């Protein structure tokens, strides 16, 4: 099912106005996040529910209001271990542990929280070269 999500998300990001490279970054980040949820929160069970919401926001950045895509992923799995949320040194050449690094490199904001028995991951990517909502004239 991950490939279905990737294809849909790629189209969404393109419609949103992201460049091809940024579309790939958004797809990679969400794919890695979903993979982490399946692996760590649901211990490999890919049939458990993951809720995803996407919305366009106008957020302040560098003193301006900028368009951004906010993605929130929620799961009902095991509590995320904060010690495992810091990634690892890339100088250590070994398989595994790259997913979180990819997420952090691909998105502008990455926030983990635990609410009402759910893990929540909030990702934000700013749209390059926008100055936020146009004022009505």
């Amino acid at each position, binding site marked *: 099912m*991950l*490939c279905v999500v*990737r294809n849909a998300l790629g189209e969404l990001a393109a419609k949103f106005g992201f460049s091809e*490279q940024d579309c*790939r970054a958004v*797809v*990679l980040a969400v*794919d*890695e996040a979903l*993979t982490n949820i*399946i*692996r760590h929160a649901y211990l490999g069970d890919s049939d458990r529910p993951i809720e995803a919401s996407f919305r366009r926001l106008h957020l302040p950045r560098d003193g301006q209001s900028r368009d951004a895509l906010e993605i929130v992923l929620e799961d009902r799995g095991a509590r995320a271990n904060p010690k495992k949320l810091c990634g690892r040194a*890339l100088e250590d*050449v*070994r*398989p*595994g542990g*790259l*997913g979180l*690094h*990819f997420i952090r*490199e*691909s998105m502008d904001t990455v926030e983990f929280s635990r609410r009402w028995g759910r893990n929540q991951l909030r990702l934000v990517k700013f749209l390059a070269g926008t100055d936020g909502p146009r004022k009505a004239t």
Partner: protein
Amino acid sequence: MKISARRLDKITIFDISGDIDLATSPELRKALLHEFRELKTPRVVLNLGAVRYMDSSGVASLVEGLKASRDVGSRFILFGLNKTIREVLQLSKLVKIFEIYENEEQSVAP
């Protein structure tokens, strides 16, 4: 993801197509480890020209393959990397540890 193998003299070329992700990377890992550890093939070449997408589990499989190749003194070569695959390897900062060529001719050259 689909994997097909072409066996030449002392060289195996794996033609990979599709997506390398959580669901499919174990198959790639298994094929690579078998080729290095069991068959001890002197040179294994991965044709990634038809791979649309690769995630961190795919990169991890490549790293495992590379380590297995070093253990038995074989060469592990990648070619045909598109923009998406190259970006992922660059993001992992591991692009320099792999032997990467543009095409098959260079990859199988003596």
